């Protein structure tokens, strides 16, 4: 797999927003058929990184190549699912209309009935399991259903790379698991490559091939085993952290400062005496 050329190549990417440095020297490659998780806390720069990949923000330095060409020229290869779209419950737009806009929303003229378009829309609805609510208004759907609708909107053009911003936020455990299953299925059935951001890596561990761990605009990249180590992450955070494994789950915690430890122990000892 690795002797294929990468579908996404990010090299030494630095981004400033409003005079503040948001991303510094971020580099990673993503190969076809992989699922890459972009992990970081709120404010670590995840959304900025995604928006730069999509060409919505211009970088200060570094390159983004999608399918071996600069990102702006290859929007056709990328499907994007934003974090949250507020659909008004009154919005007169069915799920299938939203999906169709992913295919021909940029076209001029009126959207007349067209068998091939209809077929492509049905395929996308089927791929995300949205057939049941295809004719309902988007605004009336649950959060998980709306997300499936937007994923279908992104999938309908058959992109090679699917980018999702915090798809697991605002979902209950059941819907989150269903979404992780769906992403795994898309990779196998549609030969898709997936880049997904999250602040918690755990729900994604079963399906992820690589991860980019972002702390304050800087990144460590590799497999889970390579990156999620006390040594690597301590360097990234700039202070000592521990990595705890428990039943297949991973927890990253800052170490208690040593002096504080001693002070605590003394206090405990004092109480004991």
């Amino acid at each position: 797999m690795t002797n294929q050329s990468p579908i996404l190549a990010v090299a030494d990417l630095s981004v400033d927003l409003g005079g503040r440095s948001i991303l510094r020297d971020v580099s990673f490659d993503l190969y076809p058929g992989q699922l890459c998780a972009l992990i970081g806390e709120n404010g670590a720069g995840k959304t900025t990184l995604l928006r730069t990949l999509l060409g919505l923000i211009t970088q200060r330095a570094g390159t983004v190549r999608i399918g071996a060409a600069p990102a702006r020229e290859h929007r056709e290869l990328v499907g994007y699912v934003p974090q949250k779209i507020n659909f008004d419950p009154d919005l007169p737009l069915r799920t299938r209309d939203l999906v169709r806009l992913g295919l021909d929303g940029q076209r001029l003229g009126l959207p007349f009935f067209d068998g091939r378009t209809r077929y492509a829309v049905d395929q996308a609805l089927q791929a995300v399991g949205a057939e049941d609510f295809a004719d309902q208004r988007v605004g009336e759907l649950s959060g998980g259903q709306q997300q499936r609708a937007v994923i279908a909107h992104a999938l309908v053009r058959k992109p090679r790379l699917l980018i999702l911003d915090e798809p697991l936020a605002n979902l209950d455990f059941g819907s989150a698991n269903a979404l992780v299953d769906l992403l795994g299925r898309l990779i196998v059935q549609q030969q898709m490559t997936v880049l997904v951001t999250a602040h918690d890596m755990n729900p994604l561990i079963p399906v992820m091939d690589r991860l980019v761990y972002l702390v304050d605009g800087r990144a460590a990249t590799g497999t889970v085993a390579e990156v999620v180590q006390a040594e690597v992450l301590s360097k990234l955070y700039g202070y000592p952290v521990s990595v705890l494994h428990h039943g297949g789950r991973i927890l990253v915690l800052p170490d208690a400062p040593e002096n504080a430890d001693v002070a605590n122990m003394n206090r405990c000892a004092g109480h004991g005496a």
Partner: protein
Amino acid sequence: MFAFLSSQPVQTALIVGSCAALISALIGVFTVLRGNAFAGHALADVSSAGGAASFLWGISPLLGFLGMAWIAAFGMEFLGVRKARERDLATGIVLGAGLGLSALFLYLDVTTTSTTGAAVSVMFGSLFAISQGLIWPAILAVLAVFLLVGLFYRPLILTAVDPDLATLRGVSPRWMGLLQLLVLGLAVAVCALAIGAVLATALLIGPAGAAIRLSRRPAQAIFWAMLVALTAVWLGIWMAYESYYWFSGNAWPVSFFVVALIFLFYLLAMFGSSWHQKYQRRSIASLRRLQEP
């Protein structure tokens, strides 16, 4: 009925009124979709300054309304309208400045020209007093708006749904926003001519607001909005005409009847859609009950 239809002012009123109904229904749906109702209202109010100026300088009132609405549209776009709060602020500031101009021009209308009733006809409309020469410009405005919206139908809807998704499909939300304000200006001008600058909002927002409650598709919403707007305008004109006999020679203004009918239709749509939802929920609940052993 024959006397009603053969009257010259009634014919003009019916044609210009229908133009206003069609144009406002179409643009209204996009305005409501985009959450732009306040901007629509502001454009209409500010256009009154143009209407007032047209009396002063002896130009066509349609051009007056249109010119001022476009100046205001550019003003709002220029003042920076990225966030919703900034948009409201920019709209409010342009609205204030425009109404100030309107106050000045209406004052000058009264003091320097012999026009009486300019204020009432600019602000609240006088559909039976529209000159026949305005029929063709109104029809042209409708054709221009239908052509533009038909051409950019899908990009406009996509931008209304989410600007980021639009950008990724190669649609510029900025250009779509400007296009929307320009056709909104045209719609406002025709509406202001028909039922007055202050009441134009009612025709712009009311039918669209009622329609989106009844529809699941944009095209369906546009159809219902046109039906509501045309019914309100035609019925309003007829009632105003007949009211001459109802109130022993003191006919009430058309604008009142049109706006009252739109409000009535909106209430009907509101109750209709909530009744429909309740009914749907009940039928789903009773289905579940049937399925349970």
